[in-house]
């Protein structure tokens, strides 16, 4: 599959050159897995492979389409590039195909006012502008909400990454979750996730982004909680969703601010308005802050990252797809998409500090430290992901747009490879705990070990694997010390550069630890094998195997592909002039095809790479690796091949170190803050107080009014009514009764004629009275 991409990358062939058909119809790509979701949901259980085949087919087709789309995009860029020569500034019109008014009867004057700059002549400009196709989704109060696609370099890159990794994860899962009781549901949600993610990536406007953003969140919720019978899993799912919701609040508010400021949902319009200073700087700043909160939750940045390690409760392929390669980079993608907003809002150019860079660099180091103390291999990788996302975030913060996106690209492959490798190991030992179940695995699982090693080196950022190239570009982009020659970058983010280098060293160190604990030393899992059965939670009978064994081909092939990508992905964006010394050629292909040159993208500068910086950073990273190597491979191994740490290590002898270790073990106490204080507080005291107020103040007032009314009524009834009024009535009644008793015996004798007589007498008397008085 990868080779197909290379084919497209090296030179567009004829079959992708169908006048932009794939670009204009990229909506088919998310539609395929969406259809697959519906089919699996309704018919999955009746199918021979329980729906997996539908998912794989759909995602496979989506992948092919993505590759074709990417090829067509590159073809288009090359054509445009040839005529323009160089990446100069272009104030070109955006290519917009504003068609398909379903109810085309309405003359669209207001919409025309909103999108005044989109003329029909836009069609003629073909080149590096995004391809936009859209139609009106709905209207409200004169505001049109559109839905559509926006395809440019960034989009096709993400399409490729998402579909490729999704495809590999689908294949991997057929073995990994084989026999799971909700096998079909699992594949349904994978399809839904893929569709949502692709929908998000293809968003033409920010509203669509919100929709996609939420949908991937809910898929993440469903897949983290895949084994919801156990409470920790559902807790983790809830935590993930709720933490993301906190960030979503920022997303909603930020997008709302942008919408009202730019009077449009369109990403292009918003970016242009921001870059053109049509939106006030304060407004942009506030919007950027709000959106940063969204990035912090979705992309696991400090201090909203805590859900991500917990999210490892989900099946491992899900972790690889959602929580390493795709969904968690949604925040990064969003920043990259709306870069005009952040660029202006944070005044990235010419500055040395901003919140995005700060959040990113703190996350990078903070999470790297946390990765040291984890015993669960997936948690190490999770913190590693957090840390790497910090790199991307920092890169965006310092203005190194291409570097960030490129790191996103390379990281997706090697991190997915690492997760799937960890899954392969745990599939065999039925645990993720490195200290109790692993060790010496290289002997049992050599193929997994090899791929894991490749991905690890890529992650460590050692040349010449993928991570090195992308990490190096980020460091260059910080424009740090003049000593290293990073002069022409956007600002001088020295702090970011320092943190970036420290982060590289930390990464090397904790990954070395992982390698040792997992693959070297002696296997420690033998005594747990029979009576321990957590792990994946599926009830197959692997538990009877006495020794770990290598995984099957459906697990290994995805690993091969990913480790292959971990090797080659870095070469897509070699520094300019590297090796050949020529400015044109096969260097900087990624930059060339992905970074937009258009009115919706800010005029960013690109740092000039320097050998000295690259060498220095590599040396620091290697130092980190060697320190860790010395500790584990030499000292711990010498103590005992089965040991996991030194008996008399620093934490047992030094108070400060022990305190630091505890802080790390407790994950900076953030979980306590969130779970116990904020969530527990809201759910407990605050909600109870509110409810108490409801029952005892508001409702009590109502009841009190009711009671007062009743008691007043009682008083009125008992005292006034019963005693006074009724007393009078009763008095008259008893008087009548007495009189009646007298008259009864005298008059009521049942004699009809007596009655008649009385009647006539009375009539006579009355008639007489009437005559006298009237």
């Amino acid at each position: 599959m990868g080779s197909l991409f290379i084919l497209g990358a090296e030179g567009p062939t004829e079959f992708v050159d169908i006048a932009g058909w794939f670009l204009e119809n990229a909506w088919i790509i998310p539609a395929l897995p969406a259809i697959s979701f519906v089919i699996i949901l309704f018919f999955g259980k009746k199918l021979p492979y329980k729906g997996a085949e539908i998912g794989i087919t759909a995602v496979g087709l989506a992948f092919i389409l993505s590759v074709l789309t990417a090829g067509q995009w590159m073809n288009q860029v090359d054509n445009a590039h040839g005529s323009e020569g160089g990446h100069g500034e272009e104030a070109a019109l955006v290519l917009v195909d504003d068609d398909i008014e379903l109810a085309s009867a309405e003359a669209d004057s207001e919409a025309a006012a909103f999108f005044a700059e989109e003329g029909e002549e836009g069609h003629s400009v073909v080149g590096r502008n995004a391809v936009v196709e859209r139609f009106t989704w709905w209207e409200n109060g004169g505001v049109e909400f559109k839905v559509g696609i926006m395809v440019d370099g960034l989009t096709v890159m993400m399409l490729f990454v998402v579909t490729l990794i999704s495809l590999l994860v689908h294949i991997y899962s057929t073995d990994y979750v084989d026999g799971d009781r909700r096998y079909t549901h699992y594949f349904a949600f994978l399809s839904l996730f893929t569709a949502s993610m692709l929908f998000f990536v293809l968003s033409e406007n920010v509203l669509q982004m919100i929709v996609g953003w939420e949908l991937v969140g809910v898929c993440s919720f469903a897949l983290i909680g895949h084994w919801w019978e156990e409470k920790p899993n559902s807790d983790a799912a809830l935590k993930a969703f709720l933490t993301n919701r906190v960030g979503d609040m920022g997303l909603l508010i930020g997008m709302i601010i942008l919408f009202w400021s730019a009077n449009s949902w369109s990403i292009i319009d918003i970016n242009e308005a921001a870059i053109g200073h049509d939106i006030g700087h304060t407004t942009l700043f506030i919007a950027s802050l709000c959106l940063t909160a969204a990035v912090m939750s979705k992309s696991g940045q400090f201090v909203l990252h805590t859900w991500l390690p917990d999210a490892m409760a989900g099946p491992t392929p899900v972790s690889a797809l959602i929580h390493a390669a795709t969904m968690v980079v949604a925040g990064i993608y969003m920043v990259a998409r709306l870069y005009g907003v952040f660029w202006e809002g944070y005044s990235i150019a010419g500055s040395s500090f901003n919140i995005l860079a700060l959040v990113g660099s703190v996350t990078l180091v903070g999470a790297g430290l946390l990765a040291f103390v984890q015993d669960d291999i997936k948690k190490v990788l999770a913190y590693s992901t957090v840390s790497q996302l910090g790199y991307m975030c920092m890169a965006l913060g310092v203005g190194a747009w291409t570097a960030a996106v490129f790191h996103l690209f390379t990281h997706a492959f090697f991190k997915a490879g690492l997760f799937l490798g960890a899954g392969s190991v745990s599939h065999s030992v039925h645990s993720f705990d490195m200290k109790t179940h692993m060790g010496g695995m290289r002997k049992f699982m050599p193929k997994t070990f090899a791929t894991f090693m490749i991905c690890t080196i890529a992650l460590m950022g050692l040349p010449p694997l993928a991570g090195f190239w992308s990490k190096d570009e980020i460091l260059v982009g910080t424009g740090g010390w003049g000593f290293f020659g990073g002069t022409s970058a956007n600002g001088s983010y020295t702090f970011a550069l320092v943190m970036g280098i420290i982060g590289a060293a930390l990464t090397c160190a904790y990954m070395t630890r992982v390698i040792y604990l997992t693959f070297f030393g002696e296997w420690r899992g033998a005594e747990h094998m029979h009576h321990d059965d957590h792990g994946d939670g599926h009830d197959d009978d692997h538990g009877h195997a006495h020794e770990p064994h290598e995984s099957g081909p459906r697990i290994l092939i995805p690993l091969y592909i990913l480790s292959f990508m971990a090797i080659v992905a870095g070469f897509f964006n070699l520094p300019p002039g590297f090796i050949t010394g020529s400015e044109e050629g096969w260097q900087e292909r990624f930059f060339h095809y992905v970074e937009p040159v258009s009115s919706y993208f800010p005029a960013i500068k690109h740092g000039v790479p320097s050998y000295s910086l690259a060498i220095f950073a590599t040396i620091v990273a290697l130092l980190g690796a060697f320190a860790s190597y010395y500790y584990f491979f030499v000292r711990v191994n010498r103590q005992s091949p089965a040991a996991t740490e030194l008996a008399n290590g620093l934490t047992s002898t030094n108070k400060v170190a022990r305190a630091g270790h505890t802080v790390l073990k407790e994950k900076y106490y953030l979980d306590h803050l969130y779970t116990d204080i904020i969530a527990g507080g809201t759910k407990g005291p605050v909600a109870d107080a509110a409810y108490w107020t409801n029952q005892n103040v508001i409702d009590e007032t109502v009841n009190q009014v009711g009671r007062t009314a009743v008691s007043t009524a009682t008083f009125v009834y008992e005292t006034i009514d019963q005693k006074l009024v009724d007393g009078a009535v009763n008095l008259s009644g008893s008087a009548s009764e007495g009189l009646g008793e007298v008259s009864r015996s005298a008059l009521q004798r049942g004699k009809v004629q007596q009655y008649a007589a009385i009647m006539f007498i009375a009539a006579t008397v009355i008639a007489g009275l009437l005559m006298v008085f009237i």
Partner: protein
Amino acid sequence: MEFDNNWLLSVMTFVPLVGAAIVMAIPKAEEELIKWAALITSLVAAGLGVFLLTDFNYDNAGELQYVADAQWISVINSRYIIGVDGIALPMIALTLLVVPLCIIYTMGHFPEPRNPKALLSLILILETGMLGTFIAQDLILFFVFFEVVLLPMFFMIAVWGGDDRRYASLKFFLYTMFGSALMLVSFLAMYFLADGTIVGDEANTFSMIALSDGATVGIARTSQLWIFAGMFVGFGVKVPMFPFHTWLPDAHTQAPTVGSVILAAVLLKLGTYGFIRIAIPMLPEAAAAWAPFIGLLAVIGIIYGALGCLAQTDMKRLIAFSSVAHMGFVMLGISTLTDFGINAAVFGMVAHGLITGMLFFIAGSVKDRYHTLDMARLGGLLISAPRMGWILGFCAMASLGLPGLAGFWGEFPAILASYNPAAILPEATFRGYMVVAALGTVLAAGYLLWMLQKTAMGTPKDEFVDNPEITDVKTYEWIAWAPLLALILALGLYPKPLFSTTDDAVVKSLQVNVMDDVPDCLNLDTDQGEACFDDLREQFEAAG
């Protein structure tokens, strides 16, 4: 206007009443016959509703259609004026949809103490009342229908309710009556103070058309404020708005399932509908003065309702409290006084009706199976009754405002609108409300997922393992639920039909049509806006 069809609304409205009479005439022992008679009646009404939906002129949704205007109580110039426009149409459709589904639901499981004859005729009378409220274009007629709704609901709660039904039903009844009384006073004040001659009616008029077309411009500002206050309480109780909401959890918790469903799906909408149809079009000036306060109560309701949910142990009570929060979003949309916000509010009303109605159906079915709604005892619904568990999950997701499902399009545009309220309103205040409302979405996710975790996830408690009563969704439940579920999804994916239906009518409701070239006072800055209303009043006085 199509004069040919002006019988349609009347027939549609009174068919259920006739049905109720028929049901009452059938001997009590003929239970099946009674049920079928009730169902067929409601289906006939629904069929007329389908005809209405197809025949309605959507291009002219801002105008009243199918208008009938007949003498009624001539001595006070109260007329039998009915009509339907883009705002009323979705509400009517919702009513006509929910009632047959409720009747179908009762066919499978009838609440104790049975007596289908009484319950079904009450439901049908209720339907007439609800439909009448939505079609009425005369204040007295509106009031009569508004009150007709009360009594059947009162009896439904008081007879078929839970253990604490007497308290709950009485509270519901008295609370609403209290609000209605103030509302009636306001109606009367408007009758005496407004001058219908400006719009070609009689001087004292109850005609909602005349009153919202500008017959009220001459009313002094202070009087307007008081009149609006009366309506505010009347409608606010029904919505229910914080702090008039306390009847709601009790009524919902105690009511039988179908009662809860109708209460949530339609009855609460009578209040918000009143705001949109009566309070704001008739008294825009007072609405502008009150709107910040309404917005404040709305966002308090959002947060407060969510917190109330988190403190619950009873599933049904939790859903009831969530209504307070969701109606807060609707009221927030209304309080912006923009066509955008009010459109969102109408959408929110429909969405809330579908989603919360559905949640109450599920709660009722859970109660039928487990005989408890205590969330500490529930759990593992996804194992015991997987389909029902998934439906619950689907509805919880819809309720927390997941994009792609109906709830989102009520919530998000309301928040969106409050960033940019009508110019006459204080912008900064409403932006503050926006932030609080956005916080409400977080809490909404919190309590709904927590409920989902408690009830659907995990494993069933020992007491419920292998309980033969706990079955998956039954046929009658499928029939009753499928339309709601389909609509939640359909409106979520393609909200355009509903928005385009309401849009024109909402725009028209915010305009003062009294004379040509009336300035749009709501869209001027606060001071200018008030001056604009004063000018209008002076112009009117000079003319009159």
